[in-house]
C-alpha cells in the first residue's frame, strides 16, 4: 500500500469517527426507549401540535428568509454591479457590513434598536407622546427581520460575483438578436445566473434553518426546531430531542437535495468573457436618488453597529425611560480589561477559534492534496465527509457530539469528552472543516498541475515545491477559508450553548449571561469587541486574498 493510501484511509477513518459516528448514534438513540427499540419519540413528534408547529415554523421561516433575502439582495447586486453613480464603491462595500456581526451580536443589536425598549421604539413613543411602547419585537416577524438583515448579503455577494463573471458578449448577442431589456434579463441573464442564485438560496436556507440566536432571543412563543431541541433537552426528554434532531437533519438534507435537483452547475459561457461595463445612470435625478438612497440604506445597515457602540458606553442601570441614554462612561470597557473573570471568555474564544482554524486548514490541505493527487477510494470519500458538517445544522452536531462523547466505552470508540475543555474545540473544529476545505479544495483545483511539474523539472523536491509554489498560490484560498472559519468560531453560540464548560465558556455565552444580569453595557462592549475583531479579520483576509488573487 502506498503512503498516500494509508494516509487517506487514516484520515477518512478519523473523520468517520468524529463526524458520521456521532450522527448515527443520535439516530440510534432516537429509536431507543427505556424498554428497547421504539418509535415512541417519533410518534409524539408527529402527534403533538407543538412539535408540528416547530417543524412547520422552521420550514416556512427558512423559505421566507430565502425569499426576503433574494428580494433585497438581487436588485442591490444589479444596482451596484451594473450602474454607476457617485459613492458606488464605498457604498458597495458598506452593503456587506452585516457579515461582521456574529449572529448573537446582531440579534442583541436589533433588540436594543428595534425592540420594545429600543431606540426606534422610544423615538416613536416620544414623538407620539404615548407611554406604552408602539410595538413588540417578537415572534416570526422579528426573526424574519433579523434573517433578512443578515442573510441578504449572501444573495448580494453571490449575484454580484455571478454578474461579474457573466460574459458581456452574451448580453450584446441577445441585444443584436433583437431582444429588449426584459427578454435579455429573463431569458439570458437570470438563467446564466442560475448557479449563483441557487448557491445563495441554498446557503440562506441552510443558515436560516440552523439559525439559533434570533429565535432564541426573539422567538417568544414561536418555536423553531433548533430552539425546540435545546428546550426539550433541557426538560430532560432526551429521546424526543434525538428524534427532533433527526428530523431537523432530514429537513436540511431535503433542502440540499432540492437545490441539487434544480440543475447542474453550468459554466457561464466559456469564461473568456469580459464583464459588462457599468452604465452611468443617465438622469441626474435618478443618479442623486441612487446616491441618497444608497447612503440611507447604508445608514440603516449601520444602525445596529452604532447601537451596539452607543450601548457599550452606557453605565449599568442608568438608562430607564429617556429616549437616549442620559449618561456615558468607559467603565464597561474598563471592566472587561481589568477583571480577569471578564477577560477569560475573550481569551477562550480567541484561542479556540485560532486553534481550530489552523487545525481545520491543515486537515483541509492534507485532504485536498490527497484527493487532488491520488485517486484511491478512501481519498474520494474525504470530500463529502468534510462537507457533511455544513449540511447538518449546528444544533444537530452539538447534540450528536454530546451524545457520542458522554459515555466511556473505548472499545466502541466512545470517550468522555463532554465536560472537559476539549469538547468545545472539537465541535468548533468539525464545524470549521467544511468552510476551510471548501476554500482549500477550490484553490487546489485551480492550480495548474503543470506548475508542480515545472518546479520538479527545475529540481525542486516535494517539500520545496509545496512551500515555494503551492502555498503562495493557495494564499487567497487559505485566507478566505481561514477568515470564514475564524469568524464563525469566534461568534458561535449554537454549539457552545450545548457543549460549553465553565473553563471554556466563550464570548457568546458571556454576552448572554451579562444580558441576563441586566449588564447591557458590558454585553454591548463584548459585542463591539467581537464586531471589531471580526471586521479586522475580514479586512485582513480579503486583503490577503487580493494580493495574489
Amino acid at each position: 500500500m502506498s503512503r498516500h493510501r494509508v494516509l487517506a484511509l487514516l484520515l477518512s477513518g478519523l473523520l468517520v469517527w468524529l463526524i458520521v459516528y456521532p450522527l448515527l448514534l443520535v439516530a440510534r438513540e432516537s429509536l431507543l426507549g427505556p424498554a428497547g427499540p421504539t418509535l415512541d419519540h417519533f410518534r409524539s413528534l408527529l402527534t403533538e401540535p407543538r412539535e408540528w408547529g416547530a417543524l412547520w415554523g422552521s420550514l416556512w421561516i427558512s423559505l421566507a428568509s430565502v425569499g426576503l433575502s433574494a428580494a433585497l439582495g438581487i436588485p442591490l447586486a444589479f444596482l451596484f454591479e451594473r450602474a454607476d453613480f457617485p459613492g458606488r464603491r464605498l457604498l458597495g462595500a458598506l452593503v456587506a457590513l452585516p457579515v461582521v456581526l456574529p449572529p448573537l451580536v446582531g440579534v442583541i443589536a436589533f433588540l436594543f434598536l428595534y425592540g420594545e425598549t429600543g431606540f426606534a421604539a422610544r423615538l416613536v413613543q416620544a414623538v407620539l407622546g404615548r407611554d406604552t411602547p408602539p410595538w413588540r419585537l417578537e415572534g416570526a416577524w422579528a426573526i424574519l427581520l433579523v434573517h433578512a438583515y443578515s442573510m441578504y448579503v449572501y444573495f448580494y455577494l453571490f449575484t454580484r460575483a455571478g454578474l461579474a463573471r457573466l460574459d458581456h458578449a452574451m448580453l450584446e448577442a441577445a441585444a443584436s438578436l433583437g431582444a429588449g431589456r426584459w427578454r435579455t434579463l429573463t431569458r439570458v441573464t437570470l438563467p446564466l445566473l442560475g448557479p449563483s442564485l441557487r448557491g445563495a438560496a441554498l446557503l440562506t436556507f441552510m443558515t436560516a434553518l440552523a439559525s439559533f440566536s434570533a429565535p432564541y432571543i426573539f422567538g417568544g412563543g414561536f418555536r423553531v426546531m433548533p430552539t425546540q431541541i435545546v428546550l426539550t433537552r433541557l426538560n430532560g426528554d432526551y429521546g424526543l430531542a434525538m428524534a427532533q434532531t433527526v428530523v431537523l437533519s432530514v429537513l436540511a438534507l431535503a433542502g440540499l437535495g432540492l437545490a441539487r435537483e434544480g440543475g447542474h452547475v453550468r459554466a457561464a459561457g466559456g469564461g473568456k468573457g469580459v464583464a459588462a461595463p457599468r452604465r452611468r445612470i443617465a438622469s441626474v435625478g435618478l443618479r442623486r436618488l441612487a446616491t441618497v438612497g444608497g447612503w440611507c440604506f447604508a445608514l440603516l445597515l449601520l444602525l445596529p453597529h452604532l447601537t451596539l457602540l452607543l450601548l457599550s458606553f452606557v453605565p449599568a442601570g442608568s438608562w430607564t425611560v429617556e429616549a437616549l441614554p442620559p449618561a456615558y462612561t468607559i467603565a464597561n470597557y474598563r471592566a472587561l480589561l481589568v477583571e480577569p473573570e471578564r477577560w477569560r471568555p475573550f481569551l477562550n474564544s480567541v484561542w479556540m477559534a485560532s486553534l481550530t482554524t489552523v487545525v481545520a486548514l491543515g486537515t483541509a490541505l492534507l485532504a485536498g492534496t490527497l484527493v487532488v493527487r491520488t485517486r484511491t477510494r478512501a481519498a474520494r470519500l474525504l470530500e463529502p465527509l468534510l462537507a457533511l458538517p455544513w449540511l447538518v445544522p449546528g444544533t444537530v452536531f452539538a447534540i450528536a457530539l454530546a451524545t457520542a462523547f458522554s459515555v466511556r466505552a473505548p472499545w466502541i470508540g466512545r470517550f468522555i469528552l463532554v465536560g472537559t475543555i476539549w469538547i468545545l474545540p472539537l465541535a468548533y473544529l468539525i464545524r470549521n472543516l467544511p468552510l476551510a476545505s471548501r476554500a482549500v479544495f477550490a484553490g487546489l483545483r485551480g492550480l495548474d498541475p503543470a506548475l508542480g511539474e515545472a518546479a520538479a523539472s527545475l529540481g525542486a523536491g516535494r517539500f520545496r515545491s509545496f512551500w515555494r509554489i503551492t502555498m503562495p498560490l493557495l494564499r487567497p484560498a487559505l485566507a478566505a477559508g481561514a477568515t470564514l472559519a475564524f469568524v464563525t468560531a469566534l461568534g458561535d453560540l449554537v454549539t457552545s450553548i450545548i457543549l460549553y464548560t465553565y473553563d471554556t465558556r466563550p464570548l457568546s455565552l458571556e454576552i448572554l449571561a451579562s444580558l441576563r444580569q441586566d449588564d447591557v453595557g458590558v454585553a454591548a462592549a463584548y459585542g463591539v469587541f467581537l464586531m471589531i475583531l471580526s471586521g479586522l479579520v475580514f479586512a485582513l483576509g480579503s486583503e490577503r486574498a487580493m494580493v495574489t488573487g
Partner: protein
Amino acid sequence: MSYLVLQELTRRYGPEQGLFELSFALERGRTLSLLGPSGSGKTTTLRLLGGFERPDRGHILVAGEDVAPLGPAARRFGMVFQHYALFPHLDVGRNVGFGLESLGLGGAELERRVREALSLVDLAGFERRRIAELSGGQQQRVALARAVAPEPRVLLLDEPLSNLDPGLRERTRRELRALIQRIGITTVIVTHEQDDAFDLGDVVAVLRQGRLQQIGTPETLYRTPANPFVAGFLGRGSWIDGTVVRAPAGGWEVVVESARWPLADLPGRQPGPARLLFRPGALRLADPHPGGLAGVVVDRRFAGADCYYQVGTGGGGMLEVLGRAGAALAGQAVTLVPAAEPVDQDGVMHVFPDEPA
C-alpha cells in the same frame, strides 16, 4: 447609392485610442474586411456598427436611414462574436431561434427557419444538441446561423477565424466566403490577418491608430499602397533607403547604393531620396559582378523548394530575397539584380518619397 455608409464616425478613448472620422461606403451584398494591427480600432468600429458603443459623432447609414441613434436590438444587424457568445443554457435550436423569436415568430414557422439556417451552415439535425457538446468549428457555424437566421440587414463578424486551428481555419474561411456569397448579405469582417482580409473581403480597409489608412480592393492595396504603413503591413518585404532620379534616356531610375535600376513611369513621380520596400520576389541572387547591388548572404531560411535569403548589402542595409534552395550558402558574396524590369512592376517594390522632416 451605397447600402452601408459611414460618415466621419468618431469614438475617442484617448488622443490616439479609439476611432477617428472613419468614412466609407459599401455596396449592397459586398463584403468589407477591416484590417489593422492590435489596438487600431477594428473592434471599436464593429461595436459602433453593432450599436454596442455610441459614437461621439458621425453617422451610420443603411439604405439611406441613419441607424446611429438606434440601439442594437432595433438595428437589425447580425453579429458573430469573437468567442461566439452562444447561450450555454439553450440548445442549438433555441440559440438559432432566439433572434427569430424577437421578430415574433413561433411554432412551425420558427422551426422551419431554424432548420433552414442550420442547413445553411451544414448543421442540419443539430437542433437539440447542447452548446458544450460542439467542437470549436461547429460552435462558430452555430454562431453564424444564429446571426443570419433573422435575415439581418448587415452581418458583422469579429475575428471569426481566430479561435480555430490552422487546418480548420483554412477550410472554414472557404466555407464562410461561399456562405456569405450565397446569402448575398452585406458584411463587415474584422481581422488582423492579411490572408483572411484579402480572401474574404471584396474591399479591404486598413486602420492604424484609429485612422483609416486606405480602402480598396485587395489588388489595389497590394499594388498601390497609399503609404509606407500599408505597404509594410500587407505582405513580407524589407526596407532600404535609395534615391529616385531621372534616367538619362528619359523615364525614372532608382539608385540603391551601387545599383541603378529602372522604375516604371508612374504619374506624380518625384526625384529625391526615398524609402524603398522590396518584396522578397522583387530581386534575385546573381553571381558577384559589377553594376548590381553587392552583398553577402547572412542567413537563409528554408521554405520548401525556395529559401528566404537575408542579404547584408555593402551600405549596411538588409534585404530579404527569395531564391532557389541551392542558390547560395551563408557567407557567400552575391549581387542582387531585379527579377524583372522595371523593378517596381506588379507591386513587388514600392517607392515612398522621404517626407521632409
